[in-house]
């Protein structure tokens, strides 16, 4: 076996046995060849005297096993992870509350919008205004409901994905496994993503435009900029 063949085989065997510091080990054998060649031995003779690369590599492997670090997380890492989990859980609870508030806002504004549109005044909660203004304001509020609705869907998806990613991360850290980490941002199917974006866009447009129109119409009907004073809304 030539020098290069020997060193190549040694590298391959070391790699197969998962031995650390391969380059360092091989350099030692390169030096051995250099010294022996200088003494007048042939590459074949040197390779034969060294012993087969497989046997040599196996001897390095046994060394590595004694100093092998324990896989998986130690006690303190687990403790730290537990504390992290507590803080994460608190954050998720707050985020969950926020998402629920968004959902409730969406539902409330939807009801308000419909009530304004069909002039259904529950318990006289909605102050007086002419029907044209009421209808326009109702549409604007429905737009607001759409904004809240899209935001609610997004936030719940975000929360779900954050929890999944975090669970994956915790599992990987504890077990030393290498499952691919999950992304933290919400993962939607392209179709859902497009729908959500369209709903959001149109909701913003409807809310903005209708609010301005409703405001102007109400002003004109009341004959004053502060139409809410004209109809005594806050008395």
């Amino acid at each position: 076996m030539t020098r290069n063949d020997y060193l190549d085989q040694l590298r391959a065997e070391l790699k197969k046995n998962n031995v650390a510091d391969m380059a360092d080990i091989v350099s030692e054998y390169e030096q051995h060849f250099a010294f022996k060649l200088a003494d007048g031995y042939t590459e074949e003779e040197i390779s034969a005297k060294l012993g087969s690369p497989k046997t040599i590599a196996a001897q390095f492997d046994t060394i590595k096993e004694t100093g092998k670090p324990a896989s998986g997380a130690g006690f303190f890492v687990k403790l730290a992870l537990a504390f992290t989990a507590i803080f994460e859980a608190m954050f998720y609870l707050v985020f969950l509350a926020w998402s629920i508030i968004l959902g409730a806002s969406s539902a409330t504004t939807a009801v308000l919008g419909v009530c304004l549109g069909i002039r259904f005044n529950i318990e006289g909660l909605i102050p007086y205004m002419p029907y044209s203004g009421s209808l326009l304001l109702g549409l604007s509020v429905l737009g607001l409901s759409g904004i809240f609705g899209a935001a609610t869907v997004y936030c719940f998806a975000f929360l779900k994905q954050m929890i999944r990613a975090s669970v994956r991360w915790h599992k990987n850290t504890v077990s030393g496994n290498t499952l691919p980490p999950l992304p933290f941002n919400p993962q939607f199917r392209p179709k859902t993503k497009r729908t959500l974006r369209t709903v959001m866009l149109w909701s913003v447009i409807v809310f903005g435009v209708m609010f301005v129109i409703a405001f102007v119409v109400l002003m004109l009907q009341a004959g004053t900029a502060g139409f809410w004073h004209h109809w005594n809304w806050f008395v």
Partner: protein
Amino acid sequence: MNTQYKKGVLELCVLSMLKGRDRYGYEISETLAKRIDIADGTVYPILRKLKSDGLVTTYLSEESGGPPRKYYSLTELGRSTYDADRADYLEFAKTVESIIKENKDDKE
């Protein structure tokens, strides 16, 4: 000679060689291979094990006309380990010697 117990004493031989002065890998390998029937390549894994056990350290040293050589040097731990292991081995060898001699005498 049985390779199984050669391996055990080779570590001791390497430590012994390093007790006097620092040596580079090839020097140790050559010296041992000349006197003990082992493959040339087996000393390097032993050196590496001694290093990972913290009994020796290494450093590179430039030599005139040649690549830098990797020198091995005994650590404090290596020194004390060697002294203890040496005493153990000598005691053990003496016992083994006396046992096998006794049995030889019986046969005769």
